[in-house]
């Protein structure tokens, strides 16, 4: 009797908990009247793992915040570090339960449109308009955070991918200048493999959309374009096909990339903690490696043996001389829709993202600030690692990677990674690209492949 009674009690309790969670989940997302109240603490979600230099930087930001906004001088700012791989789950949990969410969150710039459309972010249009530093933001990047005329976040820092190499290896292989065409890229990769037997020339993982798009754009192609309010996928235009074919041929025809990268991201198998093209480059088993300047700290963590020789150049376009457009990556800052303290949230954002704070922050970790005035300064051209990326930063594109349904196309349906993987495994080129093209167009327009 005791057992059944407690079982029924547990059942009732579980059901009650479920019901309350469901009710909480259905709660309104509009801010309460306390939007301008003084919070005891503000929770900021940062992506990645804590780094000492960034924590010092944040301390400085908080003391500026307390000085500049004395009404919040007793407000504690708590930074929670969310590993990049967990962000979707953590945002979803916070949204569906209505509890445990942040007040301010960092977002990858491709995340912002999707999450804004799901009601996760607060409308900051009027705040941005009234913000004096806001006018200096790179306009294209602010547009990325704007959906149907409503702004949901502000750009914080940016980054582009380029190609990492070793200066001493280039010298030994007789390469005097960084390649600026695909033909040079392949011949240099082969020269490096000849000079360093047992290594591979240039890593081409198949699950690497953000690099593959540079080759599509570098041949003059497009992933998809908007025509009359609808997305038209363009993967099977001759120019796009040339880019896709070249990337697959790095493995299939030129043999400068190993077959073990099939199905892998640039960091190896998803979820694995080691064994990818990043590690191979740091260990000297891969001669050229595609990634952004942010990779430096993780490459160093693998091996510091070659780090004095590391340098970068932009991803070449098919025929040169200008680089291929690079995907304009980066992070934004947004206000969580359920945060009750939106005034304080916005005030803290203006300090975190002031031109000087944002620049110090970006520089400390190999990114670029999002302010036009700061980007044109000479500090970036003098560093061997940053100079290549700084050059690439002058040629960027983001569409359609910022479209509302891109997360479905790339993360749920893996359209470009699946296509590249099939091609690298020897599937029929035309049929595979056409299939991906149809799926992409469907997803971009309707959110569903079929």
């Amino acid at each position, binding site marked *: 009797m005791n057992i059944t009674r407690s079982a*029924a009690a*547990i059942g*009732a309790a579980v059901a009650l908990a479920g019901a309350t969670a469901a009710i909480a989940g259905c709660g309104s997302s509009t801010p309460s009247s306390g939007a301008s109240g003084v919070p005891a603490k503000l929770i900021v979600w940062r992506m990645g793992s804590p780094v000492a230099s960034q924590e010092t930087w944040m301390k400085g930001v908080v003391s500026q915040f307390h000085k500049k906004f004395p009404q919040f001088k007793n407000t504690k700012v708590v930074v929670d570090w969310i590993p990049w791989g967990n962000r979707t789950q953590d945002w979803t949990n916070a949204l569906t339960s209505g509890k445990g969410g942040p007040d301010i969150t960092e977002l990858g710039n491709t995340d912002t449109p999707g999450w804004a459309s799901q009601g996760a972010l607060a409308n900051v249009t009027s705040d941005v308009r009234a913000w004096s530093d806001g006018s200096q933001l790179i306009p294209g990047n602010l547009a990325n955070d704007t959906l149907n005329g409503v702004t949901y976040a502000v750009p914080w820092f940016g980054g582009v991918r380029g190609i990492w190499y070793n200066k001493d290896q280039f010298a030994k292989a007789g390469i005097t200048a960084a390649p600026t065409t695909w033909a040079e890229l392949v011949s240099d990769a082969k020269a490096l493999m000849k000079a360093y037997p047992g290594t591979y020339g240039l890593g081409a993982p198949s*699950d690497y959309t953000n690099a593959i798009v540079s080759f599509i754009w570098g041949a003059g192609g497009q992933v998809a374009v908007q025509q009359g309010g609808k997305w038209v996928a363009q993967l099977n235009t001759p120019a796009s096909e040339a880019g896709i074919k070249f990337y697959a041929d790095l493995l299939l025809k030129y043999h400068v990339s190993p*077959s073990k990268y099939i*199905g892998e991201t640039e960091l190896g198998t998803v979820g694995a903690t080691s064994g990818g093209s990043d590690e191979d480059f740091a260990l000297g088993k891969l001669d050229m490696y595609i990634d952004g300047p942010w990779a430096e700290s993780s490459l160093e963590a693998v091996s510091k043996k070659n780090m004095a020789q590391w340098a970068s150049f932009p991803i070449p376009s098919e025929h040169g001389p200008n680089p291929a457009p690079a995907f304009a990556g980066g992070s934004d800052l947004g206000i969580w829709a359920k945060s009750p303290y939106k005034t304080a949230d916005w005030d803290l954002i203006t300090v975190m993202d002031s031109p000087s704070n944002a620049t110090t922050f970006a520089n400390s970790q190999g990114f670029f600030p999002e302010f036009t005035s700061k980007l044109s300064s000479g500090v970036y051209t003098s560093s061997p690692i940053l100079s290549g990326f700084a050059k690439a930063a002058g040629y960027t594109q983001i569409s359609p990677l910022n479209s509302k349904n891109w997360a479905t196309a790339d993360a749920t349906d893996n359209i470009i990674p699946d296509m590249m993987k099939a091609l690298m495994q020897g599937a029929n080129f035309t049929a595979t690209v056409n299939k991906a093209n149809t799926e992409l167009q469907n997803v971009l327009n309707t959110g569903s492949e079929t």
Partner: protein
Amino acid sequence: MADTISGHAVAQAGRALGPGRAGRKSPLTWTGEFVRRHRLAPYLLLTPALAGIALVLLWPLLQVALYSFQNYGLGQVTGVLPTQWVGLSNFTATFKDPEFWLSLRNTVLFAVVAVPATLIVGTVVGLLLNRLGRKMAFFVSTSAILAWATPPVAGSVLFYWLFNPDGGLVDWTLSKMPHWLVGSTNWAGYNWTTNGALQAYTVIAVLVVWQSFPFIGVAVLAGLKTIPAELYEAARVDGASPWRVFWRITFPLMKPIFLVLFLLSVIWDFNMFTQAYLITGELGNQNEYNLPLYIYDKAFTFPPSYGLGGALALIFAVILLVVTAGYVRTSVRQGALT
């Protein structure tokens, strides 16, 4: 038997609690008699448990069924998008998706290989354990139980490293072997896990068989202990071969056990998620999805679609029912389950 006893007990309890005066039927006594006459006691005793199950299992199940006819997703949870009834479109979208059929194929082919392999290895080990001496039986069963007790995550990580292209033991061993034995593939750096469904499921099948045969072995051993030794003695006197003894005595007598083990294995292998998720790179390779991975991807990858996920869960449940129901039905007819 059981119900008469408990009915009696309830009636007696009613009498003990009631006013207990002769000649007058208290409501409690009346209830006790009603319960006894209609043999309701077992159902009454089951009610609290059933209510609990209904709350924690049936209610969510109903909820899933409702979602499967809606466009329910994150925007509907937050309230920025309206929840709409979409009829059967979650189901038709699924049946039109080639990746659904690919996942179904991977799931079925995996079960076709892994279920018999698990049952055969497990049965052989069970038969072996039955004949081994005490010390050896202890050693073998301990080793097997350790494989069984290894958490699926730990087992998957272990196999991921064994088959890793960067210095994994399997690739290293194969690369040291002569070409005439293992073919001329470049084994050092061979990618087992993300380069195709066949390679990945080869690894997963070995892993799953390794982790699930001990249960079969132990269950078969327990079954063997119930078979009277006289039957085997008689067979030995008649000079029957071990093969014949197994098919004529062991198998027919243990058919109900084998049936249960078969059904459990089918259900487990259809539901296999952890190993596939970890070995194939956490949803990174769509051509290596099985149905559980496909459902997880559609339901929970951003932007989540709980409606589509609900439809998939129902489809998956029906598939499992179909796969197992046919076998159960024929077996019940043969009398194996009675």
